[in-house]
Structures are given as structure tokens and as C-alpha cells.
């Protein structure tokens, strides 16, 4: 069943916090929908790990499966892309 935007946001936030914990970074890093992904406390490696973790959670990786490359700048764009690409 397809997730709503707020459900998707909750999944992303949970995985985000898990990665911060695993990488021993402060776990209280907050983000809102306008936050620029690479300014969120995760570097590009952490961000790539987030996508990999979400693949485990959700069963798909929209970035590898999309016909065309997509490089989101903000969390809003990131979450909307996951919603759009749900199988």
C-alpha cells in the first residue's frame, strides 16, 4: 500500500536518526522540509547510506530505479520523489 507524505516523512526521520546514532553524530539534529539535504548533518556518504537504509525499509530505491537521474536539494524534494516513485 502506498504511503502518504506524512507516513513517508516519518520513515525517513526514523532512518535518519538511526544513521546519526550509528555514526556517533549528535542525534538531535533537526530538519524541516526546506532543509538542504547536504546541510542536514549527514554528508553525501551519510545521505547515500540513508537511501540504502530506506531501500531496506521500503523495498525500493527510487534513485537507482528511475529512468532519469534525479538529485534533490531539499528534504521536501527528497520525500516527494519517494512518494512519486512508489511501486
Amino acid at each position, binding site marked *: 500500500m502506498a504511503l502518504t507524505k506524512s507516513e513517508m516523512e516519518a520513515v525517513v526521520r526514523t532512518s535518519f536518526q538511526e544513521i546519526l546514532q550509528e555514526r556517533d553524530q549528535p542525534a538531535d539534529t533537526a530538519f524541516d522540509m526546506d532543509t538542504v539535504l547536504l546541510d542536514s548533518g549527514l554528508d553525501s556518504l551519510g545521505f547515500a547510506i540513508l537511501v540504502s537504509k530506506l531501500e531496506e525499509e521500503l523495498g525500493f530505491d527510487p534513485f537507482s530505479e528511475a529512468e532519469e*537521474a534525479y*538529485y534533490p536539494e531539499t528534504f521536501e524534494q527528497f520525500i516527494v520523489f519517494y512518494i512519486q516513485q512508489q511501486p
Partner: protein
Amino acid sequence: MPVTLRDRLAQFAPDLPLLHTVDGPLTTSDLMASSPGPSHPISGGALLIGCSDLALALRTILQFEGGLDRMGFCAPTLGTKQKDDLARAGEFDAALLDPGETLAQCPSFNSLPALETYLGTHFSAGLSSPRPTEWVMTTSGTTGVPKLVTHSLDSLTVSTKTATQPAVNIRWGMVYDYTRFAGMQVVMQSLMSGACLLCPNLMASLSEQLAFLTAQRATHLSATPTLWRKILMTPRHQALAPEVITLGGEIVDQLVLDQLAKTYPRAKCIHIFASTEAGVGFTVRDGLAGFPETYLDDSPAGIDLRIVEDQLEVHNSRVHSAYLGEQGAITDSEGWVATGDLVAQRAGRIVFLGRANGTINVGGNKVMPEVVEAALMAHPRVVFARAFEKRSAFMGALVGCEVVLDQPIPANRPEDKKVLIGQITAFASERLEAYQTPALVKVVDKIATNAAGKLMRR
């Protein structure tokens, strides 16, 4: 016949801006200001250069090349212990580093006058004419000490076009570390053509670096695919207006090539195959991943290519046949360099599949799977582990892992499994560099081994 970089730059007007840093422009004469003139101040000695200030490094090169026996380059971000190991392996007599960093192996300096005094005292003897100094580049090491590869100004500039007229309309953006082979290629290409090399502060955020390059109207920009993907995720990246984009250092995939072509329709997009050991191999200009199979018969750069047991081999007569010191051979007896890259022929193209030894390239950093496996197996619950390459649309590859536990987790306790995987990942992370950290840990019942009980890597 010019033998030094100084000779080559001497053709340019003294007021030609060759560099533009965050502090402003530097002209030919600014870079050569402290150089003494025709007779060389020193003879002999080996200098390791690992400062983050490119302008200081260039002034130093222009001052001492032609007198020194060799100049080595190491990444400013390398740990002090690794720099010390390098200084020992390459028998360096002095090092030029950032302020506050000192080595046990040799005296360290962070300014040109202090270095000049030291070298002048220990290696004095004015040479009437300069002689070729060796340029020693470091490979991106996987574990321990990076390897040292001897080059010359000639071998570093094989593919560099030298202009008779300075290319005053070309402004190269420098987002690479200049001490790496790919970064040095950009420096050489820019300097030798009389273009202006734009140097943002590489310690600043990527958006600040892009703002600098945009304000300075960069026309040419070279980066790894991973850095290009980061650039595409950075706000206001559309404000850049590159005419030429080059990619190198990792496998270049079609998605990033397509997206760059779409974002920067005016730009020519070129990917470069090169390695520190083999020198520049060739460039690909048709916007497609991999390279045309016709290159095997007729390599455009005059460097021969062949495929042996699925691995790409390169023949470049200008490169050295062995690493510096006791680090082993680079070429076989006929001069072929095994690149270690696995390739396949598909529909008229040669495509890159990964590394033959199982090394995982995480955004330009090489990870040996054995290192990750050892970190995982140090955990008391893990009896066996396998690390493998997991494709990533952002980093090229990530480290994926399978582990076998000492006893299975009951199927009705999925939460226990999740907690344990989190603990194992955090445990391994403490023992590994960030880029070596497993992105994915899967619990499996068994891991395939061969008859000798060894992991099957391919």
C-alpha cells in the same frame, strides 16, 4: 628545451593572472617573486609537499624544481602518522606542511623563507643550469601507506596542451586536491595554457565553493562523479556556466552524464580514464559511459590498451616501471600496466564493472572488503562476514555486508534482529573510517566459500 615548470611559465607576461584564490589574483611574477634567477640555490635533496595552500606549493615548486632530486606530494588531509610513513618510504629530507603539523621523520616547514634557509644550508651548490627533478605522486591507498609513483614534468603533462598564446578566456575551477594525480592534471592544464586557475577554499562548504566559482566565472570544471552528484544537489548549482566539464577518478555512469548534459547544455562533457601508475590513458567525449571498443585498436592518445582476463591493461612508455622504494613493480616486462579494472564488451563499448581484487570504490575512496570483514568479525555475535560492493546512485558504490551469527534470532523476534544489526553496525563503525562503514548489514544463515574455505569474491 625547457625542463622545469618555471621555464614553461617564463613565456607568459609577468602580469598574467595564473591563479585566483579567495584572497585575490596572483600573476606570473607573484608566483615567481621569491625565485632568485638563473642559478639554482640548491642541488640535491628530496622535499615532501603536503600543505593545503596551493599558492605556497606552487611558489615552492617554482623555486626549487631543477635543484631538488625529487618532490613528493601527499594529501594535506592525510594523517600525521601516514605522512611520516610516506616521508620514510620516500626518504624525504624535509616537508612543507600546514602550520602546526610536524613530522618525526624529517624537519617540517610551513613557509618558504624557512624552507629556503634549511635547504640552502644542507643542499647548497649553485647549479648553473637546472636538471630534471622527479615528481613523486601518491596513490590513493587502501590500507597503510599509500604507494609512491615516480613521474616527471613530462609524464605529468603528456596530455596537456601547451598554448603559444595564453588562454585568457579559460578559467579552470579547482575543486580537487592538487596533490592527487587528477588534481595535478588540472593544475598543469591550467598553468601550461596560461589560463586562470580558480582556487576556492576547499575547507569551506560546497555551496561557498560553488558561489566563488560562479562569481569568478569558471569556464572549465573537473571533478569526480561523486562530487558532481553533490554539486547537482547543492542549491544554486544552476548558476555555474561551465563550457567544459570533465569527470574522472571513479567509474562514470550514464545517469550522471545525462544529468550534467541536461543541467549544463552548453558544456562539453568529457570523462577521463587515468591512474597514478599508468598516467593519463584516454578521454571519452561522446557523452556515453565506458569507451568505444575501437580504442583497443586505435587509442586516440597513442597509449595502447588491451584486455587480459577481463582486466584492462595500459601501455604508456613514459611511466616508471616500479614504485619508489621497496614497493614493487608497476609494469610487466613488456611495459604493460594492469589497471586492476574489470571490464566487459557490450554493444561496441567497453564498460567498467569494478575492481578485480574486490576493492570497493566509495566515492573515490578504496575499501578492501577484508578490512570491513575483520571489523565485523571482531563483534562477539558475528562468526563470519562478507563485504561486497553495493551500487549507489550517489557514491558510485557503498559497502554492503552479510553476517552469520553465533546463534539464530528467533523468527518471532524481528525487533531483536534490528537492534542487533544496529549494534553490529555501530561496533564496526568505531573500528573503521567513515567511508568503510557498512551501509547495509544483512543477517544470513551461511556465506558461500570455495573448497579452501575462502570467500568467493566474484
